[in-house]
């Protein structure tokens, strides 16, 4: 049975992530529900370190990412697989690239960069789908990645802690209040000086206009396409991807709904497409009726051991440690790169048994290594505390003597300083 590992459900949609959502939609559209299972997880638990990831026990391969998953399904179709749309069309390829290039940053801006939306909607959603204590490490990393993704739009000012208070005082209606307190990297040129409450109104509206402009640049292109099923120029895969991004723009109930407002106001056809497609794929609107596997209870023998990493306490602990190590400046990234490469290589080359051992092995490795690091840090601390300073190299008294017999009774400092015999000058 196919296993699709995805980020968990949020906002009433089956997944919080666009590509995962698209992959779920594609599977429900093309494959019988009896032939696949959904596993709610996070990237640190799968060997490819990326979601969505499809594990196909028949070929014992992992496909990661939406496009690789769809091509894998076409190449190794499960018995009930049925995709009537053309396998490939130039326009669909182009629009898929367009969605990745331009719709994704827009979603990132709305759900991740904007402080208010992140705090009120997105972060709680992550907390709900990740086992404790992973919400401490993984969502901030996701947010940072999203911030980089939307960086070129120059709207990092949406990420501000000052905004909440401005909203309370009834002034911050929109998404911007000047502030440099954001913790997503902000290029200096885009930083604005804090301004008084009175001044805050105009740039707010300016930001609103800019945001509308950004949204329209993207949505204009997308609204030109006929996303209805049966249209020969759009493949099912492209339709699923478009749905996923548009749904994340339209569905989440966020405190700063500029993206949803723009969509509703100017693009009724896109809204209609999202709603129709949503009910078509997920009859309950969300993902409740989908074949979720609840981690440990998953039946399939060969893959259950792989998913176990995401379940047990040890597994979660290892993932948490991994997240912590990643935050160590300097070595964290390199360590992670090495670990991920190792895992992925294991997935690519090997048969089932070895792969399981390896993935288990690297989990143990993570735990051991992190424990070792902590111990080392503690040791250094204790050493520095004990030593209290630099070692000394000298002695209270250095003396040299004429290398001759008879003069050995020396070092008699007392004699020198007593003043009894040697006179003191």
């Amino acid at each position, binding site marked *: 049975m196919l296993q699709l590992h995805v980020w968990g459900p949020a906002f009433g949609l089956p997944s919080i992530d666009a590509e995962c959502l698209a992959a779920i939609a594609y599977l429900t559209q093309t494959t019988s529900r009896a032939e696949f299972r959904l596993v709610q997880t996070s990237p640190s638990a799968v060997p490819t370190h990326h979601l969505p990831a499809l594990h196909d026990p028949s070929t014992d391969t992992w496909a990661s990412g939406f496009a690789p998953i769809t091509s894998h399904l076409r190449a190794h179709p499960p018995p009930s697989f049925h995709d009537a749309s053309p396998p490939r069309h*130039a*326009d669909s*390829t182009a629009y898929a*690239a367009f969605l990745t290039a331009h719709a994704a940053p827009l979603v990132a801006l709305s759900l991740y960069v904007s402080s208010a939306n992140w705090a009120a909607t997105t972060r709680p959603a992550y907390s709900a789908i990740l086992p404790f204590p992973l919400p401490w490490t*993984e969502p901030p990393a*996701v947010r940072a990645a*999203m911030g*980089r993704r939307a960086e070129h739009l120059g709207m990092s000012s949406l990420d501000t802690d000052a905004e909440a208070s401005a909203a309370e005082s009834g002034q911050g209606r929109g998404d911007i209040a000047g502030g440099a307190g954001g913790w997503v990297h902000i290029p200096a040129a885009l930083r604005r000086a804090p301004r008084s409450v009175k001044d805050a109104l105009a740039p707010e509206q300016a930001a609103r206009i800019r945001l509308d402009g950004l949204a329209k640049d993207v949505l204009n292109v997308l609204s030109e396409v006929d996303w209805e099923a049966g249209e020969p120029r759009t493949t099912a895969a492209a339709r699923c991807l478009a749905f996923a991004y548009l749904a994340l723009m339209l569905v989440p109930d966020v405190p700063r709904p500029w993206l949803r407002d723009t969509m509703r106001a100017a693009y009724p056809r896109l809204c209609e497409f999202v709603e129709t497609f949503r009910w078509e794929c997920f009859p309950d609107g969300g993902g409740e009726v989908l074949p979720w596997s609840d981690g440990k209870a998953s039946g399939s023998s060969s893959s259950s051991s792989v998913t176990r990493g995401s379940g047990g306490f040890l597994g979660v602990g290892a993932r948490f440690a991994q*997240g912590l190590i990643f935050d160590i400046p300097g070595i964290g990234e390199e360590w992670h790169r090495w670990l991920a490469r190792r895992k*992925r290589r294991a997935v690519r080359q090997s048969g089932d048994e070895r792969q399981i051992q390896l993935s288990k092995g690297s989990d143990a490795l993570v735990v051991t290594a992190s424990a070792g690091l902590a111990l080392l840090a503690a040791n250094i601390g204790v050493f520095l505390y004990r030593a209290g300073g630099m070692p000394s190299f000298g002695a209270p008294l250095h003396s040299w003597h004429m290398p001759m017999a008879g003069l050995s009774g020396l070092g008699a400092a007392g004699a020198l300083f007593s003043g009894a015999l040697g006179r003191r000058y």
Partner: protein
Amino acid sequence: MSVWPSPAVPRPLQQLFDRVPLLTYDANVLPARSQSATSSRLPTLYVFSTDSDARLGAPSYNPGCLKWQTFLKLARVEFQIVPATNHASPTGALPFLLPARPSPSASASASASPAPAPVSSARLQKYALEHGQHKPAEQTPTLRLDAYQALLDVPIRNAWLQALYLEPRHAALLDRLYVAPASSSRWVQATLRHQLRRAAEAEILKTSSSAGGSASATPILVDESAMYAGARDALDALADLLAESETDWFFGAPSPSLFDASVFAYTHLMRRLLDGGADGEGEDLKIPARLGALVRAAGTGELERHQSRLLEMLWPGESLSGR
């Protein structure tokens, strides 16, 4: 360091100031290195290139630079190219164009006039249309073009970055193009190489759909095979688009447009630099990073013919196996 309150210079003092200096000689001659940089009266396009290539005006080896070099040539702007690095650019990225100095007459005093403001790549299209003797075909401003532009910006660019910067088999090529020209020191080269690779990786992860950029907690790794598959699909899509056109150029334009230049910039360089030679057959993805082979295999060879056509048109006599 030095202060002179500009308003209110007393009159007698102003008269004194006007009288000095008592003697003014001709300007000092510029150093040898800047003589060639300032001697020409043509606008200068700063690109990644080699000294000898720049002298001949040969195509740059950087896709971003080649795109604008091609477009300026299509618009028949007269310009010279100069090899440079990103440090020379006002925006931190090449290419950019430095218009000719305004003073036309005495070459000696040419250095006296202030340097003109550089034109960054974002404004090059406007500049080319204003200063060129030929108007390249206007792109019909369809929204579809935006979608196809995304193919170049995401899957094709990412595959290019992956193949050239991160693929070990092209390490020597990367060194020759980007690392060795900067410095002969091994220490500097190693640092630059590392910086380049990290930057390329970050760029890929920022935009790539299949490499963990979207929502992975720790986007660290690039999935090469998925990326090359994405590039193959993208090139196929471009080939289909070209096949759809009634003319030789994209979107049915009577003459090449900016989009043709953009596509050419990648297809030409992929064929010239990243094709394992003529022995390749088809789309063999087992040999990684053979992007040139993907170009040749795209559609029914439309992109290959398009590339040859444009090369013949702008650089007659230039062959792929130049170096």
